């Protein structure tokens, strides 16, 4: 099989990328979306709470509604989606193989490939929580699937470890469905989730949040019978503080301890990875080190708002379309983004400057919560080329700053090959 564009993943990123590529002039019959689940929409299908689409559509949608909008756009354009399809291999030169019950085993190649595989959750094993290994330890997303898709409850008395957004959402969801959420423990001294979720999912339901706490032991033989939690020492590698242990009888432990971009295919294709984001290293078009292979969405880096996933996917989709349309790939001048004080990573990691360069929005996460800071982009001499004041920033909320096209062009003309992105504390 030969296609102009193959999109791996039919979640919000893959759908938006395919729509953008189509709208940029690629015939729908030249595009193929491969989705491993039974339906397109990705993990949004189980996110039945609202809060999606405020930026994108200016209204508050549920996850399935948000996904539905993009599924409709794909269907209106008659872009083909194969569901129940799993890509087994991908090479740097855009050859891949996939299987599905409908198609059987298929080898395919494409002029452009967009990686939109999403992410997975960190597990108990990754945290090395000691204790027994009974039923009743779930990642929050797995529990969410049971509750929202299958219509069953993972347990009645619940402790949640990790205050990531999914954990917070599930604290509320389990409570609304009749379970008792006993507490949420967070290893860090601040929550990893959006501030609005702390208020709406915990405070509104009187669910205690124990900051600087972790689960030190899981108890139970067949099923969880309890967990031991303890305070951790900030000054000593966040190790549990002896004497602060507390046994909490419960039948369920939910883990919301981080998301990991899924990049087994990316790594298999030999694409350069960013060890911090866990995703590919990309330029502003979201093109990876393999020519014609783009990455977007949570497979590239973990987002907190799906609206930004769509935006990023459209960048990749348009770029893939441009490549396919054989727009001459000009030899680009590359400017890398070096992160400085307070900034953990930036996506894109580099900017390829061509004649047609447009405004570039740098998305990034901060290392720690800060108040009253200025986000600063500097040239090699330390001169500010963009700045933005922020009252408060936190690792749980993605930040961004836009570089104007004319500024980028000037940097390139001056021979600049590296810009800095950092925070600066403002006078209080």
């Amino acid at each position, binding site marked *: 099989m030969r296609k102009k564009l193959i999109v791996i993943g039919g979640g919000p990123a893959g759908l938006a990328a395919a729509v953008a590529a189509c709208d940029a002039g690629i015939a729908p019959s030249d595009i193929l979306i491969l989705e491993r689940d039974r339906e397109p929409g990705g993990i949004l299908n189980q996110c039945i709470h609202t809060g999606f689409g405020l930026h994108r559509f200016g209204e508050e949608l549920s996850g399935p509604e948000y996904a539905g909008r993009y599924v409709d756009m794909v269907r209106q354009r008659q872009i083909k989606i194969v569901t129940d399809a799993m890509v087994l291999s991908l090479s740097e030169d855009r050859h891949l193989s996939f299987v599905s019950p409908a198609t059987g085993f298929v080898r395919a190649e494409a002029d452009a490939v967009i990686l939109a595989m999403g992410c997975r959750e960190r597990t108990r094993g990754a945290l090395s929580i*000691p204790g027994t290994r009974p039923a009743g330890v779930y990642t929050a997303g797995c529990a969410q699937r049971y509750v929202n898709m299958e219509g069953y409850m993972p347990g009645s008395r619940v402790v949640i470890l990790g205050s990531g957004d999914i954990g917070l959402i599930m604290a509320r969801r389990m409570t609304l469905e009749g379970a008792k959420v006993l507490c949420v423990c967070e290893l860090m001294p601040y929550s990893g989730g959006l501030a609005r979720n702390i208020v709406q999912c915990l405070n509104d339901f009187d669910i205690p949040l124990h900051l600087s706490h972790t689960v030190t032991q899981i108890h139970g033989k067949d099923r969880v019978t309890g967990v031991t939690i303890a305070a951790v020492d900030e000054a000593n590698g966040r190790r549990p503080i002896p004497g602060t242990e507390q046994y909490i009888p419960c039948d369920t432990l939910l883990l919301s301890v981080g998301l990991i971009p899924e990049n087994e295919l990316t790594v298999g294709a030999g694409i350069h990875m960013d060890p911090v984001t866990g995703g590919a290293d990309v330029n502003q078009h979201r093109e990876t080190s393999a020519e014609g292979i783009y990455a977007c969405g949570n497979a590239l880096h973990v987002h907190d708002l799906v609206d930004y996933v769509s935006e990023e996917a459209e960048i990749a989709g348009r770029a893939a379309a441009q490549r396919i349309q054989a727009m001459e790939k000009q030899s680009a001048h590359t400017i890398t983004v070096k992160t400085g004080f307070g900034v953990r990573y930036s996506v894109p990691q580099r900017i390829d400057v061509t004649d047609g360069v447009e405004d570039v929005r740098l998305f990034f996460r901060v290392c720690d919560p800060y108040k009253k800071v200025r986000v600063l982009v500097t040239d090699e001499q330390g001169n500010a080329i963009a700045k933005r004041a922020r009252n408060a920033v936190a690792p749980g909320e993605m930040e961004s700053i836009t570089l104007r096209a004319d500024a980028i062009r000037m940097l390139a003309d001056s021979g600049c090959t590296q810009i800095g992105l950092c925070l600066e504390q403002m006078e209080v």
Partner: protein
Amino acid sequence: MIYDVLIIGAGITGTMTARCLAAYDCSVAVAEAGPDVAWEATRANSAIIHAGYDCVPGTVKAKMNVRGCAMMEEICRTLGVSYKKCGSHVVAFGEEDEATLRELYDRGIRNGVTGLRILTREELRQMEPNISEAATASLWAPGAGIVCPYGLAIAAAENAATNGVDFYFRFAVSGVRETDGYYTVSNGTDTICARRIVNAAGVSSADVAKMLGDEGLDVQITPRRGEYILMDKKCGGTVNSTLFAAPSAKGKGVLVARTVHGNLLIGPNANEVERGDTSVTAAGLAEITAGAKRLVPSVNPRQSITNFAGIRATPSTHDFMLFASEEKKGIIHAIGVESPGLASSPAVAEYIVQLLSEDGLILRKRENYIPTRRAEGNPKLFAEMTDEERAAAIAADPAYGRIICRCETVTEGDLLSAMHSPLPARDIDMLKRRTRAGMGRCQGGFCSPRAAALLAADQGTTLDHITKSGGGSWLVRKREDIVREVEDHA
């Protein structure tokens, strides 16, 4: 009916013995206390086919280990079980350890192990580039291998079942009665009758021996726990063979090994525990991490995908006790089969069958004997197929085109096949051990709801009746039941 032979215990010894007996025209039953084969020591161990240099010359262990290791490759081929003869190094750190290597080398030669060599620091580094700078030499045993221990036990048991051996699970033997030349074994509610009994009860083997009438037997079995960390497949290439630290008085020491599935495995430590305690401790994980890093400094605990603990059935006699009871006719004991019990299992099974024969069991080859796991051959997992085989499998059954476990590439076809096997998978863990669904880096986060739904459909029930591993290990409950429980609690 009265079986010719009842085997108590479906660990590696019991299942391999069942497989051996299945080749003959006799009726055989296996009674297992757990809900599945490979439930205790066989479930969680280092998965190493030891070469046989470690055992004290002249012991039963030494004899069984060397012979078993030599038999393993052929048995695995016959049963379609992955086996890799990757070799092993015992690594020395300094002169004292090097003296131990020479001692082990001599033992190995006396035990009849072939191919042993003591390597220099440079030779070792060439074979294992990630070995610690502090390593000074190694004992190289090219005949050592790796295998999936529970996979081998399941395969052997399936082959036995295919040839007519009956398996009774959740049958913990609690009493034995002798009448008219046969034994009636009870678990309190049900009974199984047999003319001869093989005691392959692992950690319980001494207790079962007493129950079978050998009350004067002077042996205690101590459950010793070993903790392990299993790492992501991307670290599998850290080592090319199995690396042991030179042994000390405390045991064989921590090893760093590649599993037959391509993960990196580190462990175990050794602690005496209460029977059945397979919990993992923070101290234990720290201990094995430190031990592994001593061998291979680049081992990174952050790549852990799961940790677990296994139980060894350590006998006070420090040797396998394989013998026919002098007290009672027709009772064969396999007591204290600890490490290298996995490597020894083909030879132990063969010897037990010989003891049964000496006791009068008539061994006539079974007509229409099926050497494979199922009448139609050995099942092959989708993940192990070539692309051509995959295409053919999906064409024959579209369920093989639907991936359920994305991390380990397990298809719906694989899962259905395991549910309809001679020892059918009835819960999530049984499916996992048979297909690897949920064994990967997401640890079942994505696939367990779908695997549970397939189990429910297959059993004509609802999700709230599906368990992780039987008993009270329920996965989910109906909403109304949860609401009632919470109200009751309040």
